[in-house]
């Protein structure tokens, strides 16, 4: 039940090709991350919608392979 930082980055990058993405491995266990994503795709969306878009990019891994992801999303 873990996902590598590289895999996480690739998933986010494919969901947000224009995204400025920063990832921190909070616990060093490949299971608790913080991600900061800045993308034009977030424009006009609510915070809930923005986070839902991120979860969609993670293709069902959130809450399964990936236990914890602290999210910060901002419009570009």
């Amino acid at each position, binding site marked *: 039940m873990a996902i590598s930082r590289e895999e996480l980055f690739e998933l986010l990058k494919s969901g947000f090709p224009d995204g400025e993405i920063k990832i921190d491995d909070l616990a060093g266990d490949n299971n608790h991350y913080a991600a900061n994503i800045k993308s034009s795709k977030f424009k006009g969306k609510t*915070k*809930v919608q923005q*986070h839902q878009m991120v*979860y969609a990019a993670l293709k069902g891994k959130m*809450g399964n392979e990936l236990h*914890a992801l602290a999210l910060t999303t901002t419009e570009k």
Partner: protein
Amino acid sequence: MKEIHKKIEEIIKKNKVVLFMKGTPEMPQCGFSMTVCNILKQLKINFFSVNVLSDELVRQGIKEYSNWPTIPQLYVNGNFIGGCDIVKEMYEKDEIKKIIN
């Protein structure tokens, strides 16, 4: 609509502020649930809590209901407000009280 989704809808319509969490407000079982509890407590907001760990149907059902894969989940006046990150951000911007009043 699935039976469990109806049950969830009933809970969030009957109670003004509902937190679906892991554990209880007295003894949260996850740091993210604890963070949201602490924010609500600090703002002196009364809330109804549902421990998803005690009911697997609710645990799965709430994720489908809101199209949101993680717990905790905060609902106010029947609307999904967000998870831990969003609640924290709103707290920092002083926005929680506004949506409750």
